[in-house]
């Protein structure tokens, strides 16, 4: 309280300094990222056309488009989600609704998920190759790629769903119980709808991860760039396509840019869609 004037001047300088550092860091980050995005957009937009989306790749991807690759990607994604979502969400529901946080079963599951969440994707790739491709004999196929991804998505989907369910106020459970409602009914009518935005957001995160994944698919779903005929065919995912074009195909930069642009746009669209969906769900829930 002595020298208040001087003290506050010191504070003001310290505040300014911190502010300057933070602003410059932010400026740097922003600039670099905008540089990357601009690079992608500039590189990709030239090559992008309707034909690029609707044609299959020719000449190792230098010509033609990415239609078959998009289809493969979607198929892999579908397999992964169909396999992972029920498992993950039921696990989350079990953990939150039916298990005391301290139960040993709950602890085991939570620990497994914790470890799974940190497992590098290439290790999932190793596992998928050894288990799905070779042991189960699925070979290089969309199915084994999708299932490998499903393993990878399990922890993400579970932990987001768990967080979402936990965020639903306990008062709903208590009031519903006090009204004599069963857990099942409480879950279906109250908790799941209340957690829907969180579930959707988690799903979205999972889709994002799945679309972006390369390493886990390298040895499971394979490289084949043709239109897949069945789930047992090998199919090249979009991220893998970018990898291949940029690493292995001289003159593949342009289509790689364009593919990257498509991938990023796709992720963006899914993002927006899911937000809308979550919002819509909320409205609908109130209306009925």
């Amino acid at each position, binding site marked *: 309280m002595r020298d208040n004037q001087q003290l506050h001047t010191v504070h003001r300088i310290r505040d300014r300094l911190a502010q300057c550092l933070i602003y410059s860091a932010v400026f740097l980050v922003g600039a670099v990222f905008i540089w990357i995005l601009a690079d992608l957009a500039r590189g990709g937009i030239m090559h992008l056309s309707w034909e690029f989306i609707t044609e299959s790749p020719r000449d190792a991807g230098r010509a033609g488009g990415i239609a078959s690759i998009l289809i493969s990607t979607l198929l892999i994604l579908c397999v992964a989600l169909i396999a992972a979502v029920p498992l993950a969400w039921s696990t989350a529901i079990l953990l939150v609704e039916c298990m005391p946080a301290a139960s040993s079963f709950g602890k085991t599951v939570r620990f497994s998920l914790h470890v799974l969440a940190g497992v590098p994707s290439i290790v999932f790739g190793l596992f998928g190759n050894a288990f799905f491709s070779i042991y189960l004999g699925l070979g290089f196929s969309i199915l084994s790629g999708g299932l490998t991804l499903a393993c990878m998505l399990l922890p993400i989907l579970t932990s987001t769903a768990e967080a979402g369910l936990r965020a639903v106020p306990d008062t709903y*459970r208590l009031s519903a119980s006090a009204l004599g409602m069963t857990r099942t009914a409480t879950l279906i009518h109250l908790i799941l709808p209340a957690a829907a935005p969180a579930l959707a957001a988690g799903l979205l995160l999972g889709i994002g991860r799945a679309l972006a994944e390369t390493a886990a698919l390298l040895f499971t779903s394979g490289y084949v760039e043709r239109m897949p005929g069945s789930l047992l065919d090998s199919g090249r995912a979009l991220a893998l396509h970018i990898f291949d074009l940029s690493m292995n195909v001289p003159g593949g930069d342009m289509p790689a840019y364009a593919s990257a642009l498509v991938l990023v746009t796709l992720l963006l669209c899914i993002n927006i869609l899911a937000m809308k969906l979550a919002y819509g769900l909320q409205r609908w829930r109130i209306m009925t």
Partner: protein
Amino acid sequence: MNANQDDAFTLGPLEAGPVCCDPQPVIQVKDLSLHYGDKIALDKVTLDIYKGCITALIGPSGCGKSSFLSAINRLTDLIPGCCVNGNIFVYDQDIHRSDSNVQELRRQIGMVFQKPTPFPLSIRRNIALPLNEHGIRKQAEVAAITEQVLRDVGLWAEVYDRLDTSALSLSGGQQQRLCFARALALNPQILLMDEPCSALDPIASGVVEDLICRLQGRYTIVIVTHNLAQARRIANYAALFWIKERAGQLVEFGRCQHIFESPSHELTAAYVNGVRG
């Protein structure tokens, strides 16, 4: 005014004659002990709740009033690590017997919490959902009950034209009354209330208090409150809980007048006189 007319009560006549002239136990609690893991929340509480009366539970924070309420409708089942010993009889049925039906018990015993907790649904759905759960599904019947209970809590005039908007858009006092209505819809015989007014501003709180008074006689009511003036105004019986040796205990139970004016226990005297909530 039209609104006032709609506000009129449809509560039926008292079922049990003049209030509490002949105390008739509806809930009998015998040697109830309640632990949360190692923590003892209630230690050997024995208490009868009388039919048609309002019983107020008072006492300092953490003395186990809420725990006592939860034990009565077995809401404690939901709390991991919570362990209940002793007997509770509701209408002479031991509620802890393995063949007793918890859902039916909870239908019989309505509960209202401190924080208004409408479900994030429309006003209509808030009442219809528990009804459906209990097998009442006919549109007309549900609508009739909805109107009835909303009138009972004096909410009909305020919301009849927007039953399909979200219950969350109501004000705090309205939400709390909706919670009352939801509980009443199941036609319970007993109502448990855990500080139903304390999260509300004074005006809303007054409205809810009026409502409780008007429910007296038709329901057996157990209310937890920190507001001694309120307890005094509305209750017929009062029970004081206290924390002794780190465990909640029942110190004194008796007619409201007795507790507030000539308490037998010195703790009670100190509490009812000294507290400035």
